[in-house]
């Protein structure tokens, strides 16, 4: 199975970006980058293709679903798996995320100590 080596996390909340960078980076095996908006995430991903994108849903301007649509429309980024990280976890919302092409959903608030494990499980499901 292909190894997960790099993650791009997108969230307009600086606190959450910092927590995610710490939580995913502590074992030293993952290169973690963060972005504050969908627009900057697309630019960052084009500059250096991440293995996986973790995407907040509710962001000003370009929200998570709109950002995912931009990723899918960009040939270089179209196949990058995108996981939503969100407090929106009603069944209807989860169905919508799946229909949009999300590779998974991680609920907020998440347990920082379990985040890396959750990400790896989703990665294994994608590539298993």
């Amino acid at each position, binding site marked *: 199975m292909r190894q997960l080596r790099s993650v791009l996390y997108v969230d307009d909340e600086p606190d959450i970006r910092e927590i995610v960078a710490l939580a995913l980076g502590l074992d030293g095996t993952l290169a973690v980058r963060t972005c504050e908006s969908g627009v900057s995430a697309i630019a960052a991903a084009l500059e250096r293709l991440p293995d996986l994108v973790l995407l907040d849903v509710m962001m*000003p301007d370009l929200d998570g679903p709109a950002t995912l649509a931009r990723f899918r429309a960009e040939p270089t980024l179209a196949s990058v798996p995108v996981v939503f990280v969100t407090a*929106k976890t009603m069944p209807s919302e989860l169905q919508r995320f799946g229909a949009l092409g999300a590779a998974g959903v991680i609920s907020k608030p998440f347990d920082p*100590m379990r985040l890396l494990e959750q990400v790896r499980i989703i990665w294994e499901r994608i590539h298993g």
Partner: protein
Amino acid sequence: MADAPQDDRQRRTGILAGQLAALGGAFRTRLARDREALGGEYAALAGADVDAPASLKRIELAAHKLHGTAAMFGYAELGEAAGRLERAAREALQAGAGAQAAHAALARAHAGLATEIDVALVAPPPEPSIASRGPGSPPQTK
């Protein structure tokens, strides 16, 4: 040697807990700003010249952010209260409520969140959610 992974996990937990505690201080500062901003948006709904959908959207977004963040800093009840305000704002938006109706519909949820923020600001800082739990435990939410 058999305990090495557990030791490493404890070390990581300690580092993360320390970082979360530090971030928690900034979060409390932010709470005061959020309370003021949400209060301003909510009060504006009582006025005559307000763009109700835009105001509701801002309230929904601000409450959503608190909903997703608060429990990680040990403020589970505040996070739940923020979730209630987020839902109330979304439902008012979906119902196409005017400003006055939205003001009434959000009253309880807004007051609840404002109270939780007040409590959080005067109480001693809680421990971050991972600090008081063993590894692998689920997030603390009520």
